[in-house]
């Protein structure tokens, strides 16, 4: 008896698991639905990863044929000694932390504004989610040309200065674009959280005479904690890998001021054609991310469950 059978069966199969005690359901059968997805992901992600590790132990310049040879850990040593790599690492951390924080904050603010009935609420919500729906590539180009251009851009028009934002504040410019793109996502998640608050609790609070601020801190925020956690985690995962904005707006410049790790890896692989080093960097990033994520997850779960997040 199959746990995954042809979907068009009209009657429940006469199966041995008629008595649905958890005991007769063997662990294997319970795992079975998981297997297709698991195997698929393993095949598609681990094979390239293994190859990446393999390449990381070689010195290989794609455009100098015959230069490929085994060098052990030399690539890793070179990577850590590369000041640009460390700079890119710093930029990545700054970018992620700042963007997640600000988009969360803005998202929270917008969600609160949206969490009431008012004229045209649907339209406003539609408008506000749109930055997340346009192609990040389109968004990056949009900001580069219509906002940041020192002569023809809107910021120049509004502030009247000749500041070349992309040259003088490259990382900040990229962060502005990323925050703009991700705020709607945060806003939606938080809005979902706000709208799923148990209404009776809120009513009880207002009956008890609790002010808006008090209600917010004592009831809403704890309820939102799960949503904030998810938003932070998801946002961080995607923002760490930000590539489009940097590639299309600043190309990591000037110099390497706005280079983050994904972009630096791309440069070494596709402009330098140094496959060994870029693979080594990829492996290092995986390890670092896993370490950070493990700590962050533990920290978050501990903090929020102590505060008694809603079950």
């Amino acid at each position, binding site marked *: 008896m199959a746990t995954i059978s042809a979907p068009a069966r009209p009657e429940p199969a006469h199966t041995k698991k008629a008595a649905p005690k958890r005991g007769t359901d063997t662990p294997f059968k319970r795992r079975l639905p998981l297997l297709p997805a698991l195997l698929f992901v393993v095949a598609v992600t681990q094979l390239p990863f293994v190859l990446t590790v393999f*390449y990381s132990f070689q010195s290989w310049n794609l455009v100098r044929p015959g230069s490929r040879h085994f060098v052990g850990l030399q690539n890793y040593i070179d990577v850590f000694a590369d000041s640009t790599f460390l700079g890119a690492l710093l930029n990545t951390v700054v970018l992620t932390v700042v963007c997640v924080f600000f988009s969360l904050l803005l998202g929270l603010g917008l969600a609160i*504004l*949206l969490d009431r009935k008012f004229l045209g609420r649907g339209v406003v919500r539609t408008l506000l989610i749109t930055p997340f729906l346009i192609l*990040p590539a389109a968004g990056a180009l949009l900001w580069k040309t219509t906002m940041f251009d020192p002569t023809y851009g809107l910021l120049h028009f509004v502030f009247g200065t000749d500041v070349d934002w992309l040259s003088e504040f490259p990382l900040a410019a990229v962060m502005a674009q990323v925050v703009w793109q991700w705020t709607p996502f945060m806003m*939606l998640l938080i809005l979902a959280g706000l709208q799923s608050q148990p209404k009776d609790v809120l009513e009880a609070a207002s009956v008890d005479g609790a002010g808006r601020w008090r209600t917010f801190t004592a009831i809403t925020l704890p309820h939102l904690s*799960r949503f904030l956690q998810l938003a932070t985690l998801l946002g961080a995962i995607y923002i760490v890998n930000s590539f489009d904005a940097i590639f299309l707006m600043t190309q990591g410049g000037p110099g390497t001021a706005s280079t983050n790790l994904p972009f630096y890896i791309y440069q070494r692989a596709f402009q330098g054609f140094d496959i060994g080093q870029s693979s080594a960097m990829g492996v290092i990033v995986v390890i670092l991310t896993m370490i950070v994520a493990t700590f962050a997850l533990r920290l978050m779960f501990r903090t929020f469950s102590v505060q008694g997040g809603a079950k």
Partner: protein
Amino acid sequence: MKSRFGPGALTVATWVIAILFVFPLLWMILTAFKQEADAYTDPPRLFFTPTLDQFAGVLERGFLPYLSNSAFVTVVSTLFVLLLGIPAAYALSLAPVKGTSNALGFFLSTKMLPIVAAIIPLYVISQNTQLLDNVWALIILYTSMNLPLAIWMMRSFFLEVPHEMIEAGRIDGATLPILLRKIIMPVVAPGVAATALICVIFSWTEFFYSVNLTAARAGTVPVFLVGFITSEGLYWAQLSAAALLASLPVMIVGWIAQNHLVRGLSMGAVK
């Protein structure tokens, strides 16, 4: 609600903030209707004679094949994600076994490899499997890219299904597919819809793989857009038109489905 300024003022403030926030987007839409000369003005020009030339130019450059490639890749990969992900989410939520959290952790960890680092191996693999410049390469990659997120999201929706309903179903002797279809899905449908929508957004807008692993035949919409950035000449108005057309399908889908999105996410998005 004791508000100092009254609901009216708050509404106005909300509107103003919303318009300010999306202003770059509104400007892009405006620019799409300009001639190039009107796009490069200082100060920026608000009034001008609109033209549809840029849109015509975009379509002339062969936008439609890229559009249909994107649509194909997005829809098929999302279907695959649902096909693989729903049973997996079920197993990880309603039928947990030892090792569940490991599996979850594993799925999440696959998102930690910067996709940039894997591109050369992927390129080499695609070459050897004849999948270079082929939509199926993208479909496979996007499916695996979105599965972890989809499984995680759907798992938490599944956790919302009342235990009694499932037990009742099991007692009646339902197999997994029946259980899923008749009992669980109706409850989690908005959540699944939300998940599918997120997958659609991420697949449609994915830039890196599509630009590097496709060429002429399997190019998707981001590839088309990038071709507009020319090293020489003026191009902002055409680019705006292209960006608008490129984003329109997902924008429309998102607008229509935003209720599902919010409702789905609010059904206990995190456990």
